């Protein structure tokens, strides 16, 4: 993926560029809002990482400016503030996701990959298939190897989100946000227990596990045999 990082702090920017490079992406850097705006408008990027506080032009203004010019590149906002209302403001300006500083790079990577993937028009897909596991969004039915697996509504949504991002890492925070719509940090890791329950239903009685734990990052659903 080709990513543009708009960040005024040189060290953070260099770290992001390096880490994104190591993850198999290429990243350009803009040090202020105006330059970032021009680069994002003219270059073909798969995703933008925009810091909220920028010299020359505020991050939110850059994003809304781009949206006005019909640039639909997905944007991840980075912010040192981290309030709930701050997140709302960021999304209202046209951002697609929001990550408060300080963050784990694995979290940022998972989110930016999920964002870039979102531009693919697979939201209209009514069936997700990973290996012999399939999920029918219309019938709200999950089968594995032809066998129907009964799921609770929330378990269904959890699996649906994982399968939409099949092959990608999905973090615990992303799951809490997208499946439960909770944007805070629960003191205990509640998501892990939900995942192990789901795993018990879709993986337990089958030979190949599909739902994998990615150490230090989150979870991914994928068929390793393929």
């Amino acid at each position, binding site marked *: 993926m080709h990513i543009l990082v708009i960040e005024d702090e040189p060290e953070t920017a260099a770290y992001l560029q390096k880490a994104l490079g190591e993850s198999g992406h290429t990243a350009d850097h803009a040090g202020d809002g105006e330059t970032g705006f021009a680069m994002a408008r003219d270059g073909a990027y798969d995703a933008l990482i925009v810091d909220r506080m920028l010299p020359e032009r505020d991050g939110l203004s850059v994003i809304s400016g781009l949206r006005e010019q019909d640039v639909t590149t997905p944007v991840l906002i980075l912010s040192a503030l981290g309030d709930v*209302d701050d997140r709302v403001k960021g999304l209202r300006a046209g951002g697609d996701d929001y990550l408060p500083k300080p963050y784990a790079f694995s979290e940022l990577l998972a989110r930016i990959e999920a964002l870039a993937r979102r531009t693919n028009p697979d939201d209209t897909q009514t069936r997700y298939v990973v290996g012999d596991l399939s999920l029918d969004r219309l019938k709200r039915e999950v089968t594995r190897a032809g066998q129907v697996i009964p799921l609770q509504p929330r378990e269904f949504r959890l699996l649906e989100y994982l399968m939409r991002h099949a092959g990608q890492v999905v973090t615990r925070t992303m799951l809490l946000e997208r499946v*439960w719509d909770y944007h805070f*940090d*629960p*003191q*205990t890791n*509640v998501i892990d227990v939900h995942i192990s329950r789901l795993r018990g239903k879709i993986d337990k009685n089958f030979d190949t596990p599909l739902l994998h734990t990615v150490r230090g990052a989150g979870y991914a659903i994928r068929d390793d045999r393929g």
Partner: protein
Amino acid sequence: MSFLPKLFRTTTFRLSVLNLVLFATAAAVAIAYIYWNTSGLIARQLDGVIQAEIQGLAEQYRAGGMARLTKTVAERSQTPGESLYLVTDRNGRYIAGNLTSITPGLWNAVGQIEFVYQRRNGAESQNRLALANVFRLRGGYRLIVGRDIEERRAFERVILSAVLWGLGLMGLIGLGGGLLVSRNLLARIDKVTATSQTIMAGDLSERISVTGADDELDRLSESLNAMLDRIEQLMTGLREVSDNIAHDLKTPLNRLRNRVEDALRAKSGAADYRDVLERTIEEADDLIKTFNALLSIARLEAGTTEAARGQIDLAELVSDTVELYEPLAEESGMKLETRLLQKAHISGDRQLLGQALSNLIDNAIKYGRGQGKAQADPIVIDLKKRGDQFEIAVADRGPGIETRDRKRVLERFVRLETSRSRPGSGLGLSLAAAVARLHGGDIKLANNKPGLRVVITLPASGAADAAET
């Protein structure tokens, strides 16, 4: 000596001067009005007397000519009084009358004139003011009929000096009074200023003295003192909190540092380094979480966070949160039980309330386990409406919290476990309390006999369509 200029700049002094000027102007206008009227009346009376004299003399003159006039003037001049007469021939020689000396210019004048004449009073003669009419008669004779108006002038002088003295005294007394009052007030204000300077210099225990007069200054002082009490209280609280923060963040930082140092010293392999680094990241993440929680509490308590308010259904929020924690509870061998209203709409922030509630449930799962029982009692979460308030209660059958500790655990970083073996920052309840307060509600800890019952009360918004299940 900057006292006097300072005094002149006081509001009280300026107000008294202004008041004085206004009053003096009003008094001067009133006195002037009275003066003009009185002196006008006197002038008219005088004029009337002179006219009557002239008329009388004119009658004599018409009846008996010059001889009769001269005789009458001579007669009248004998009677002592204020009337003045003089008859002269064409050369200005005296024929009759009591006006002995006149200035030559008087002869050329015709009509009414004011002039100074000399009156003989025994041996002395004095200059006096007179008002007279000069007539030219046939044959070059002249007649002057007038009246001494020295009395009137004296009267005017008396009034004028009375006015001047009056105004002068009024100004003096007014200024003096103003200065006195201002000095009094200034002294009290200076005291307040001195006290506040001491406070600014760092002594927060200082208070402004109250005179006991129960006037507006006393009331101001009392209200300032109350404010100072509140500030002192907040400052003390803040100091305690920062001490706690320093302690609670220093300990894990130290631990983190020691672990890294230890790993460096051990000269072990890459795998060990990796392990240490991973654990370091975990601890750093925990520290960040603690920081975030602290910041959130601070912002909530300061009221600087704009809660993203919306209409939310508490029943839905509670069941969502319970659903999120259910598997965790089961894994810890506990159960969550809910008794909920069907609908409980309030205006609130779903994220904040969800976080508060999840902190309570999390605590109940961690600490709410009854001891020595094979099957743990369920944690009961109920949502009720009482009056115009909703009550969300999370009740467990654990060891509970002693009455004396119940208020304390709501404070930041207070953890009753002295060993601090179980994970947690000691901020969960503080955050829940801050969220409840931000929504105009409250949080209370009660005895569940046995166990702990934490109750969040939130004001119901408007006409809530709540119904008991």
